[in-house]
């Protein structure tokens, strides 16, 4: 602020001497830059402080808790330092290891399948055709509605009495008309969760890829056409390589999102049947909220964060050189 007040004064002082005008202008500009910068820090500060508080506080608190015994269910046992025992308990826990395995499998299948489907959708949306607006609106709605909606909606769909899945399967083959899905078997529960999750999350991945398609210059395709390339050839040789940055962003985004999956699991299966659909996030929820074990839960959270960073890091490492 003060810099701006000084600057005009300096300029008027320098003006009569004529030759000094350039330095004065430069001085004014640099003092404006300094003032801008100060204002800039003031304007970013709220965003940075808020985000730092919302994410940094849980990070530090989890770290501290993870080395302590903190369990509200046993109020008579005071908090105390326990070293690495929360971590060793986790790495030797069969339920944690099983949920890690499940989460990784779900993540791998979802990331690959969803990104592939999203690429097809993005190519459709990239083309100008009558009805494009309708298609765009149609795929945005599943993305925009709450996860509760996608979960409840597919729960209705897969219900043998209320849903259309069995209704249509029954038309195909009478004995398929009354299949039970969620909770009936491990595989069927995962099918239901996977479909509800993909239905909701594919659209956003498609939008990311659409953004990537839109920045590929049209001359590239024209040149390919002149050279006699078929549609498939120009897709393989031109579109895919140029789309690589967008595909990477889509994969990182979708992988992390699937890795953290919680809402659909909680709503559709509750982790069941038994514990067969419990994911890392679901287990963490149970440890915190059901068991009020904040030491053990803290260790789980820290490991979840570290694994997310590793996943993101691996993507960047593996895909960077080709960009």
């Amino acid at each position: 602020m003060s810099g701006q007040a000084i600057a005009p004064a300096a300029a008027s002082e320098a003006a009569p001497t004529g030759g000094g005008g350039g330095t004065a202008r430069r001085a004014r500009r640099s003092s404006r830059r300094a003032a801008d910068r100060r204002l800039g820090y003031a304007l970013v500060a709220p965003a940075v402080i808020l985000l730092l508080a919302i994410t940094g506080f849980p990070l530090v608190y989890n770290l501290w808790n993870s080395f302590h015994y903190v369990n509200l269910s046993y109020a008579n046992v005071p908090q105390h330092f326990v070293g690495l025992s929360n971590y060793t308990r986790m790495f030797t826990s069969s339920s944690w290891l099983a949920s890690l395995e499940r989460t990784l499998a779900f993540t791998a299948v979802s990331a690959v399948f969803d990104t592939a489907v999203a690429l097809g959708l993005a190519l459709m949306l990239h083309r100008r055709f009558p009805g494009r607006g309708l298609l765009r609106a149609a795929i945005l709605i599943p993305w925009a509605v709450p996860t509760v909606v996608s979960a409840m909606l597919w729960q209705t769909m897969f219900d043998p009495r209320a849903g259309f899945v069995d209704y249509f399967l029954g038309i195909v083959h009478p004995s398929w008309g009354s299949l039970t899905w969620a909770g009936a078997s491990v595989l069927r529960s995962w099918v239901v969760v996977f479909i509800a999750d993909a239905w909701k999350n594919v659209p956003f991945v498609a939008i990311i890829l659409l953004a990537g398609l839109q920045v590929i210059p049209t001359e590239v395709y024209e040149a390919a056409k002149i050279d006699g390339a078929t549609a498939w050839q120009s897709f393989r040789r031109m579109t895919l390589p140029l789309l690589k940055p967008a595909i990477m962003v889509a994969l990182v985004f979708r992988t992390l999102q699937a890795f953290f999956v919680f809402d659909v699991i909680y709503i559709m299966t509750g982790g069941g049947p038994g514990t067969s659909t419990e994911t890392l996030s679901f287990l963490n929820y149970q440890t915190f909220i059901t068991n009020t074990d904040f030491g053990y839960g803290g260790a789980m959270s820290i490991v979840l964060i570290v694994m997310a960073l590793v996943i993101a890091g691996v993507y960047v490492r593996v895909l960077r050189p080709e960009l």
Partner: protein
Amino acid sequence: MTGRLRMRVVVRETGFYLGVLVVIAIALFPFYWILRTSLESDGQVAAGVGGKNGLLPSHLTLSSYVNDFTQQHFLTPLVNSIVVALATTFVTIIVATLAGYALARLNIRGAGAILGFVLLAGFFPVLAMIGPLFLLLKDLGMLNSIYPLIVIYLVYTLPISTWLLRNFFAQIPRELEEAALVDGATRLQALVKVVAPVAVPGVFTAAILSFILAWNDFAFAVSFLETPSHFTAPLSIVTFGQSQFQVFYNRIDAAVVIISVPIAALVLILQRRIVSGLTAGSFR
């Protein structure tokens, strides 16, 4: 030769439009189905799909909507959700507009690092936050209150809004505010009087996205809210089916329709803006 070529074009075009139709059906048919189910009576739901209760039920009723508001008291969670989502959106817009402008225009050192941190915060696992936040809210006596959610939901809304607005401001020609600055306006005056009016579409897009993201939360609500009168709408719906021997999907689906309608309306009216907001400058 040209005949065969035309054949191929016809086949390809037919295939393309068939594909578009399939996608639209997969996206929208489930919504038709919940609307259809929500308009059935308890008796029809108990009888199951088939016969007179096929694709088009023979008899429709609004009884499950009435039930949601009179028996399940769905209005309170609905109002809670609206309050939290609007408040979060309001805070997001102010904070993200200021930050976005500073990051795009004010030559601050470490702008890249700040943008990186904002992005990283957006990927922070939600379930790794609930433990410490639960303890904090418990100590503050604010568990079971919707108000802390207004701040907590910023972790959903601030990263994407800050990025979006930063990209938006970067695309506005500098000459616009330079002219105002030459005329003796301060930076803040230039931002409020000259840049902000031009930035309205970007701010609007950020507001829509923020509202959608805040409206959609489930994880924080289920972790912190304890009594039905303090629930948000998505959390409330999950409890509808519970404590009954039979699941009345018509009642659940009526509530699902109610919370989907405002979002679907926003998307239908503003789809072009939402897509351009989501894609704007992300790979430039």
